């Protein structure tokens, strides 16, 4: 009894209230999205809103049940559950039927269940267990291999075997936890620069230079890498003198190439590659002179980046599914297609835009009612909020999410053992990732990747998974006071 009392006393009521408020607001909007002016009850199990309420009830029940399980249980069983769940993920496509190309849904009677949803939590627990060891160092390469494998295996299964790219991308959210636990900032900036290289090489690849010979994309990539090298010399090594000399050489070479076009069509792709190699060699000579070999990191980075640029086009054309390719092309402005792949986003923007400052009012939206927006109660549910509740409603919802996630970080920071802290950061990362990708997609800022808005989108599978994710954290958090003794 005393133990349970202490659990209730230590429970984080703020998260629970935010969870309930967001879920109920989501339920109202699912009702709104499915409403066709004549529908009857919000509680009718025949419609989506009624079902969502049922899922919410089940999720709450499971969440409360989870509160009664001792936190140590997760730590002890993390690997076993992880291994079992990998088998479930592997078996899923064999049992699943094809849902719009994805093989990730299993029919369990009335509930269509997506094991990939729950695997995020299970992976987080396994990561937390592995990285929670007292002698664990995130900066050591050897210690990094296992966590990366732990998260890459389920991600790969989901992406390749279940063909559910959206759910697989969520595994990138663990970067947040890695960063907080001390992973080098270079990894994040490096990752960001790779994304930039990818965009450059895809977006501008087919565009020829207005002068000389070559493609804009290739030139941009090489130029970007050259600038990275210069920045490294300037900021990381603090070597102003050599940075200036290098910048001078770069400008000189490019200027020379430019002048040459007056008589002869210069191949700028070749030129920019030569410039890049020249800078790398120059830098290497500096390094050898200074005997500060750690600085060769940038050389390795450039080499990998060059390979990456070459691989980009191949990946884009061969590995990505056609519909994913189209989505990226539309987002990058390579294709203008208001009725095809851009249709969802276009309609979504119209629906949100038409909401204006205060919205059209509950159940009064027309864009979503007329089914202009596909997936209007799942991935595009935010449209209904935008249309019916206007800027005020949507901003409030976003602020609620913001408070929720920042509060999760507060919870994470007050943990006394590494296991709970790592798990808490994983949870925060997952929620942040879902929020960013989903809202970014609906607002036309990111490509269309179908992942749900936590607690908000219609769906039993995601509602239950997110709730469990949160409530396991709440139990771990409630126990933190006991850990003092």
């Amino acid at each position, binding site marked *: 009894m005393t133990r349970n009392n202490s659990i209730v006393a230590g429970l984080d009521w703020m998260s629970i209230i935010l969870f309930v408020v967001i879920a109920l607001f989501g339920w109202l909007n699912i009702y709104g999205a499915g409403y*066709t*002016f*004549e529908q009857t009850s919000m509680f009718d199990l*025949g*419609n989506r809103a009624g079902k969502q309420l049922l899922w919410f009830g089940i999720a709450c029940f499971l969440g409360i049940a989870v509160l009664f399980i001792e936190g140590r249980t997760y730590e002890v069983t993390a690997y076993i559950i992880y291994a079992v769940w990998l088998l479930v993920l592997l078996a899923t496509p064999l049992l699943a*039927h*094809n849902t719009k190309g994805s093989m990730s849904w299993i029919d369990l009677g009335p509930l269509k269940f997506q094991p990939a949803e729950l695997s995020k939590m299970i992976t987080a627990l396994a990561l937390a267990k592995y990285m929670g060891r007292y002698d664990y160092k995130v900066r050591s390469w050897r210690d990094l291999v296992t966590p990366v494998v732990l998260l890459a295996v389920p991600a790969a299964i989901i992406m390749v075997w279940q063909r559910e790219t959206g759910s697989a991308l969520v595994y990138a959210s663990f970067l*947040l936890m890695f*960063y*907080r*636990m*001390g992973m080098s900032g270079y990894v994040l900036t490096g990752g960001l620069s790779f994304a930039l290289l990818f965009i450059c090489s895809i977006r501008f690849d087919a565009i020829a230079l207005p002068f000389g010979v070559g493609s804009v994309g290739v030139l941009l990539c090489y130029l970007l890498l050259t600038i990275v090298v210069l920045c490294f010399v300037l900021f990381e090594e603090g070597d102003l003198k050599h940075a200036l000399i290098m910048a001078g050489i770069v400008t000189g070479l490019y200027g020379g190439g430019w002048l040459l076009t007056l008589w002869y069509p210069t191949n700028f792709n070749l030129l920019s590659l030569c410039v890049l190699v020249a800078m790398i060699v120059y830098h290497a000579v500096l390094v050898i002179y200074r005997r500060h070999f750690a600085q060769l990191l940038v050389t390795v980075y450039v080499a990998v980046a060059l390979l990456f640029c070459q691989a980009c086009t191949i990946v884009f054309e061969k590995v990505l599914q056609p519909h994913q390719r189209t989505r990226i092309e539309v987002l990058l402005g390579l294709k203008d297609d*208001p*009725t095809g792949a851009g*249709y969802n986003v*276009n*309609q979504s*923007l*119209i*629906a*949100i*835009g*038409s*909401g*204006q*400052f205060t919205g059209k009012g509950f159940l009064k939206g*027309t*864009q979503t*009612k*007329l*089914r*202009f927006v596909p997936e209007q109660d799942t991935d595009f549910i935010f449209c209904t909020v*935008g249309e019916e509740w*206007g*800027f005020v409603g*949507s*901003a409030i919802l*976003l*602020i609620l*999410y*913001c408070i929720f*996630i*920042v509060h999760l*970080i507060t919870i*994470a*920071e007050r*943990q*006394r053992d590494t296991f709970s*802290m790592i798990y808490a950061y994983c949870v*925060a990362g997952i929620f*942040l990732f879902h*929020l*960013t990708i989903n*809202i*970014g997609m609906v*607002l036309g*800022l990111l490509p269309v990747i179908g992942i749900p808005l936590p607690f908000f989108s219609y769906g039993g599978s995601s509602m239950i998974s997110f709730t469990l994710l949160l409530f396991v954290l709440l139990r771990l958090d409630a126990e933190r006071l006991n850990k003092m003794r």
Partner: protein
Amino acid sequence: MTNDPFYRRNYIIRGTVILIVLLFIVRLFWLQVIDQSQKEKADNNALLRQVVYPSRGLVYDRNGELLVFNQPIYEVTLILREMKQGFDTVAFCRCLNIDSTEFAERMAQIKDKRRNRGFSTYTPQIFMSQLSKQDVASLRETSYKYSGMGIRKRTLRGYNYPYAAHILGSVGEVSQSDLDRDSYYQAGDYAGRDGMERTYEQRLRGEKGVEVIMRDSRGRIQGSYHDGEEDVEAIAGKDLHLTLDIRLQAVAEQLLNGKVGSAVAIEPSTGEILALASSPTWNPEILVGKQRSEQYSRLLADEGKPLLNRATQAMYPPGSTFKTIQSVVCLQEGGITPNTMYPCSGPGSTPIKCTHHHGSPVALLGAIEQSCNPYFWCAFRDMLQKEGYGNDNEVFRKRYNLWREDVMKFGLGAKFDHTDISEQSTGTIPSEKLFNRTYGQKGWKAITIRSLSIGQGEILATPLQLANQAATLANRGYYITPHINRELTDDPQLRHETGMKAEWFELTAEGMHRVMTNGTGRWNNIDSLQMCGKTGTAQNPHGKDHAIFIGFAPMDNPKIAVAVIVENAGFGATWAAPVASLMMEQYLTDTIKRKPLFNKIANAHFTTAHDTKQ
């Protein structure tokens, strides 16, 4: 956690979260408050992609006769929201010939979300479908009385002839499995369900187009988007030219009327199927439109099993018609020579009886002419035993396999590859394994499998395979896989050589010619057409024997090869031969002069099962 060197990073993370949300809020503010263009778009032009259905490919016979075409049907749609502005329900019901109860029922159906998932009061909902032009004519005239009503046109299949139902197949609403398999389809689309409509679905269906139209926020259609620049035109399906001769098909079906069985005719030199009839059958028209599902269940429940395509799916022992193959194979493998003679003592012969007394001993030509069972038993035996039995029966079994391979070169015992005929049965030419299993490796000899010599026992073939066998004999040693699309004819993959001497075929053809002049076919011969044939009577353990006939004509440079089976009719000479003979006459002379014979056969009924055509 106090000595955490990375503690400050939590501020960076919190900052990032707040920054992201802030960015979203700025974007929202831009979309919803500053930029008014989205609002205008929402007010004026919501895009709607409306499917434009292509017209389905037409189907012609080999002479360019149109067999299958498209006929328009109409759907009446209602926009519920607009009906409030004035709707004369009484007049509406009168035009459609329904009463107010049915009207109420149909309205309830439209509103039932479980059955009508795309329900909206703003968009057109189908009230009644599959109406003819006449049905909607009066509605059109008085359309001002019904606000919110629309009339949409779609197409259904129409048939010029009541024949060839099995080959043509039918078009119906796509099944769930089609929807899952091919993203081209949407619920409610039509697609080929069976026969060549299904085989050639991809080619016949064409490609749907899209018309992008704008609607206001009330769902009312405002016009086309970008002046139709975004529209994609529908591509009509390609036409199909079949190898069928519809007049021959008609004759075949009329002759089989009231009987259970099938008749298949092939042009030997091309493998083109001229006619493929299976009885009982139905008029393809009954599977079109509103009545489709009701009629389909009726056919499914019919005890005569009309839906079974007997010509390609039913298997029968070939009986005496198999002696034609035996003749070629035994000559080829050296079991007999053209001059080998065997004695026959008529019904008293052992181990196989002959059906009647005839001159004895007989050589090959006489044996074919008289359909002498003892002759073919002896030829079969001598062919198999030619090199003795060997250790453990080994040599004999090798000879048997040689015989089996030869027989299968006539297209028996296997489905035809690379053809467009779906739903074939394999047939059986028993394998060595089968006999080894039953009798043990050493336990079977020529005498054990003697029934095979006269086409009984374990041998089974479909009528299509028998017709192909006739074509192989007509071609003196090769066949082109039978098919129904004329475009396939030139495919070199379809040609199959038996690799046996033309001389043996010539001799067998001579024998088959003598069947028609002096033998069991003589009552159905037309001298000028140089008919060749072989009758058969397949023993049927379940009832009366099946009548079988295979043949071709003319003897030199044959134009048509035929196989006919009439179930439970008795002698092949009496019931199957006249059908084949009349079909040859029809095809070769384009008319039937033997009207009394035609009428006698066409009016004979062997089945109590009612004919579905009436």
